[in-house]
């Protein structure tokens, strides 16, 4: 049962680690996010409001698609507003969510065309490129920060002044994000796996102890039997020694036996008794004490001594005996 639990814990831990890895890879959040506005009848000009490029950070890319060459114009924000007065245009005002740019239709009844939209003296810069036009947000940010720090600028987007200013605008920002639960999955999985492994090792070690204990007990019992056999057939001194052991293990009346045990002879001198003592030192020691105590006529004292496991038949030794 313990080993099964350990294996289960290890498996759960491994699952946690795998989940953590998946959270870092397959289930990891996107490395970039793109907000898009598809423009229907936006008018001859589209304006990206100041700061919209930086909603998702100061790096990224703007992609503008138009029917023809796309011109991206920078100018003072008030100049762009003044220039577009009376002109139907669309403003990109922000991002309603991370995939959608919010837009505002301005002066829908205004002029539908602009004459020479790239030729105004108001424009600080005009950059024309074939569609799709791409703009590096990092470079644009650098141009209005640091030494060139200024009010964030609008971007005016036009094509030829008659067609739509832009058909589609996408802004892509890099995302520095990760699944928040990944560290927990790693930590929890690792902890559970370690606990499971420890349990597994302990259970294997204990099983080894049990096996060893069984192996130790079996020859001991066999040898005790042999001793008893030897007692039955051997000399009186050996029989006294073996009898002392047997009485102690059984918990039977030691006083009676001790009173009957021969005292003049050393029990270790008996061939059977010496053999048992060499095989189970702890038991022999305990029993030797007990036997000695009993031989000294203090067996009743020894029996009342709860701190002496060897003398307490209801102690752990008794459990060991039962097993």
């Amino acid at each position, binding site marked *: 049962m313990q080993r099964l639990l350990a294996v289960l814990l290890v498996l*759960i831990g491994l699952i946690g680690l795998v*989940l953590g890895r998946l959270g870092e890879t397959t289930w990891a959040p996107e490395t970039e996010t793109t907000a898009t506005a598809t423009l229907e009848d936006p008018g001859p000009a589209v304006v990206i409001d*100041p*700061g919209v490029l930086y909603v998702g950070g100061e790096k990224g890319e703007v992609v503008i698609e138009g029917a023809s060459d796309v011109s991206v114009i920078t100018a003072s924000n008030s100049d762009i507003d003044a*220039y577009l007065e009376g002109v139907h245009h669309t403003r990109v005002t922000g991002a309603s969510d991370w995939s959608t740019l919010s837009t505002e239709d301005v002066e829908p009844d205004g002029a539908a065309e602009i004459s020479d939209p790239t030729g105004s*003296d108001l424009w600080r810069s005009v950059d024309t490129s074939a569609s799709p036009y791409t703009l590096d947000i990092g470079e644009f940010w650098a141009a209005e920060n640091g030494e060139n720090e200024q009010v964030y600028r609008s971007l005016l987007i036009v094509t030829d002044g008659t067609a739509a200013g832009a058909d589609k605008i996408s802004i892509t920002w890099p995302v520095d994000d990760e699944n928040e639960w990944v560290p*927990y999955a790693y930590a*929890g999985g690792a902890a*559970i796996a370690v606990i499971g492994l420890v349990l597994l090792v302990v259970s294997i070690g204990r099983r080894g102890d049990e096996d060893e204990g069984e192996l130790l007990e079996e020859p001991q019992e066999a040898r005790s039997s042999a001793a008893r056999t030897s007692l039955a057939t051997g000399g009186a001194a050996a029989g006294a020694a073996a009898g002392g052991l047997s009485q102690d293990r059984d918990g039977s009346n030691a006083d009676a036996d001790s009173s009957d045990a021969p005292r003049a002879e050393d029990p270790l001198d008996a061939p059977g008794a010496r053999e048992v003592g060499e095989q189970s030192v702890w038991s022999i020691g305990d029993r030797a004490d007990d036997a000695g105590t009993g031989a000294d006529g203090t067996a009743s004292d020894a029996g009342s001594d709860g701190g002496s496991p060897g003398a307490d038949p209801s102690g*752990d030794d008794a459990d060991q005996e039962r097993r």
Partner: protein
Amino acid sequence: MTPQTLRGTARKDTVMSTRPVGRRGLLLGAGGVLATGLLAACGSEPSAPPAPPTGKQLAEPTPVQTTEQIEEIVPEVNAAVVAADEAKDAAKLAPRVSGSAAEFRKAVYGLIEKAPEWAEDLKVPGAGTIVPMSSVSAEFPRVAIALVEDSVQDGVPYFLAMQQKDAKSGYTAWGWAQQAVGVDMPTVPNAVVGSEALTADAEGLVMTPAQALELYAKVLTDGDAADPDDKLAANPFQTGTHERIQAERKELNKGVEWDEAGTIRETYSVRDGELAGLRTEDGGAIVMATLMSSRKVAIKDGATMRYAEDNKYTKVIGTREFTKQYVREFGTHVALYIPSADAGGQVQPIGATQTALAASGE
């Protein structure tokens, strides 16, 4: 500690680790950790996009035109003038040249038709910008002044006056005044900082731009007597104009008593609607405007003024003899420096370019 004691302790640990409650706890704990992870995975939704950042709010307004922008406009002015002069077609001046500059050019082309030597009097501002001055005032119309090179090699620079009527119009140059030689020029703010645009009645100066221009016109007309407080500094254009008039006066009355044959007088007035004023670094102002003048030779009754040879005026008029009057019309673009009221000092004309527009006589 006896070996027996050690053995007993080892047994106790083993027994405790295998208690049923411990197993359940471990399973519950492991399940809890995994469930927490899964719930966290399901519950982690991205936050909504923030509002667009506004960036830095400037404490001071910035120029409405950068140096680069002005440097793009000035060559187009030059190109337009050059093209128009080559074709003697004032229509080619548009859209970069407008106002009095276009009118003056058109008049000169008319003179050139009658006397080709008038072409030598055409003054053309160059394409290179020396000092740009841009306004920080966002309102329209906007003004800008640039000190530009002369189109002639090693020539004297011109003050070029420009105006942008509205947001949908481009800058147009309405006049240029050649820098006065030998006059100290005021210091203007850095182009990155820009200048405050001034109107005709701007205050904080020793006199308003309108007053300064009126004073200048009066002094050009009447001489230093019109400036008893000596508020106007001497300037090459005034000096040269008066010298030329005095020379003609002497020529006109050569061999007779003083003004016996006739009188000569040039009257100046300020043209309305054309004024470019920008604040200088010391709180003063550079003001550009257009003056109109008429130089009239009134011939005494019974007298006849006769040129021995044709000149470019008589070629235009078609006669060398005048018995009543002989009139020449001019237009002059001028640039003045008006000191601040705190600093005080004289109004200093710093540039002027005069263009002959017409000539008549009888």
